[in-house]
């Protein structure tokens, strides 16, 4: 298996993070863990953006993944962390397989609004039902990893950090392969011109469907890891402003590389930590102006800062190279 530059960078960064985790202070480890977990949710948003869809409801799957971890203990008596994460992913994928049948018929603002509506439905159900924790949500405690009980405090922080870095690296690796596979490439073609893709004999709808379902699974994993790291889940995970935050991070990073959402999520978390400290009532305003700035001056996100000076890769010679290495994707 030959690795390209992005994949090497990915492996290198993961190792660096794990090494850094041994010396970094607890608060920084926690911050990076949450940022990476949220970046996974953002990867789900980016997957759909690459196919031309903006989901204003990715919080739905974030919440499903988180609640699987939160409710697995009290409802199912399961404490194994990996099983809880898996339940979240399976639940989200199952839900997405049903919702996707309807949602893939929509584009543009209709897709945005309908995905928003679905996440608000979950929010409404959670907030109004006492059995599902109402507005309080659930605490996540006393979970185990491979048979070892994870007590709170420093150990838990480090264990979740390890888990998140590994999960993020693996998912990013697979996503990178996926984007270069034929299905991944078709997603971009659909964004450019859907009707022409149809004329080529492909079904944009089923490709969107597969993409949507996969994105749901990735986002749910992010939600589950966030729940393990934060030790708490509440209905706000499904509220539409949470989904708005994911879109913000996705646009901040851009869709240029699978690494971009991680970079954007870490920048976002760092800036937020300090902004809330120093200007608590102007934090959203900073976000708003930044978002406008990105839309106007950096439409391809922060990532384009790293790539714009290089000449564009020639389109034609690149194609055979891509088919020879792609194969492990999707």
């Amino acid at each position: 298996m030959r690795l390209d530059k992005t994949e090497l960078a990915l492996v290198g960064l993961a190792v660096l993070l794990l090494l850094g985790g041994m010396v970094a202070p607890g608060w920084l480890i926690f911050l990076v863990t949450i940022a990476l977990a949220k970046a996974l949710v953002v990867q789900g948003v980016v997957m759909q953006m690459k196919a031309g869809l903006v989901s204003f409801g990715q919080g739905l799957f974030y919440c499903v993944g988180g609640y699987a971890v939160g409710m697995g203990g009290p409802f199912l008596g399961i404490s194994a962390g990996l099983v809880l994460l898996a339940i979240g992913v399976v639940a989200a994928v199952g839900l997405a397989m049903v919702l996707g049948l309807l949602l893939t018929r929509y584009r543009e603002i209709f897709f945005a609004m309908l995905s928003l509506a679905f996440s608000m439905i979950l929010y409404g159900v959670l907030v109004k039902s006492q059995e599902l924790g109402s507005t309080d949500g659930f605490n996540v405690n006393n979970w185990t990893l491979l048979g070892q009980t994870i007590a709170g405090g420093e150990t838990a922080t480090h264990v979740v950090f390890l888990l998140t870095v590994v999960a993020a690296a693996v998912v990013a690796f697979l996503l990178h392969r996926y984007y270069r596979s034929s299905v991944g490439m078709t997603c971009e073609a659909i964004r450019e011109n859907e009707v022409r893709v149809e004329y080529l004999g492909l079904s944009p709808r089923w490709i969107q469907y597969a993409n949507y379902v996969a994105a749901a699974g990735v986002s749910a994993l992010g939600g589950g890891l966030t729940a393990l790291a934060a030790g708490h889940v509440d209905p706000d995970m499904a509220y539409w402003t949470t989904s708005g935050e994911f879109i913000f991070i996705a646009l901040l990073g851009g869709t240029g590389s699978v690494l971009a959402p991680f970079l954007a999520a870490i920048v976002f978390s760092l800036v937020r930590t300090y902004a809330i400290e120093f200007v608590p009532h102007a934090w959203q305003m900073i976000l708003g102006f930044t978002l406008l700035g990105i839309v106007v001056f950096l439409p391809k996100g922060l990532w384009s800062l790293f790539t714009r000076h290089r000449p564009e890769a020639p389109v034609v010679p690149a194609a055979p190279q891509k088919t020879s290495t792609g194969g492990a994707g999707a």
Partner: protein
Amino acid sequence: MLSFIAVLIDGTIYASWLFLVAAGLTVIYGVMRILNMAHGSFYAIGAYAAASAIGWYFSDGTGSAGMSFLLLIGCAIAAGLVVGTLVERGLLRFMYGRDEILMVIITYALLLILEDAMKLIWGVNPYFAYQPYTALGRSTIAGLKVSNYDLALIGVAVVVGLALWGWLERTNLGKILRAVIHDREVASAMGVNVRRMFFLTFIIGTTLGTLAGALTAPSISVVPGIGVEVIVLAFAVVVVGGLGSIEGAAVGALLLGLSRAMAVHFAPQFELFVIYGVMSLVLAIRPQGLFGRTLARKI
């Protein structure tokens, strides 16, 4: 029987409120093709402006209820003109012609900015403006006590709806606007100043938003975050009715208002679920909404 009447009254009151909130959103989308996420913030600005004006007016213990209604409406119009002008001239006019979905993101950025701007201007403590609400008293309909202010809201919604309809369908300016709605480029080729029409539409849409907020202020406590809650409800209404359609917004508001009232009376845990449930159901059957037009796909 009693609960049936209660559902009908509650539902109609809620529907009028929904219509007032959603009217500006649908007007702006209809003409400008901008799904304005910041509409909820306009609502909140109207509510804050009205609440602080009412608070000031009644602060010395005197003041008549009649004047306070004029004050409510005056505040709404003033706030709408100021905010609408600032936003359109200062931001949106540079953004025309971009993708619809990008406009959603731009107005989302605007929402974030306005939310904090309100916190900086009015602080985070609640404002109250209950005087106009209590001044009107209550009446009894079929054994149920109903606030007259809420009943008056129904009247206001009907007047606003008819005025909008009459303006679009019965005046010269309305005819020009419909031309812009129908085909922006051809209208502009026929000598319509489309940008001026956009400006006008945006001001009217904004003012409708602030008016809804100002009229709601007496019956709620005005706190940060009310706009964020309202915007998703307004989306539900206009999406159900068909984006850009006034009569659609009216029907959508009635449908959602009555459904919610039914849920509140018979199954309160479904109060929020029912609104988005109805929205999803309508979209599943008629993606363009009840009154929306289907568009041909372009290659």
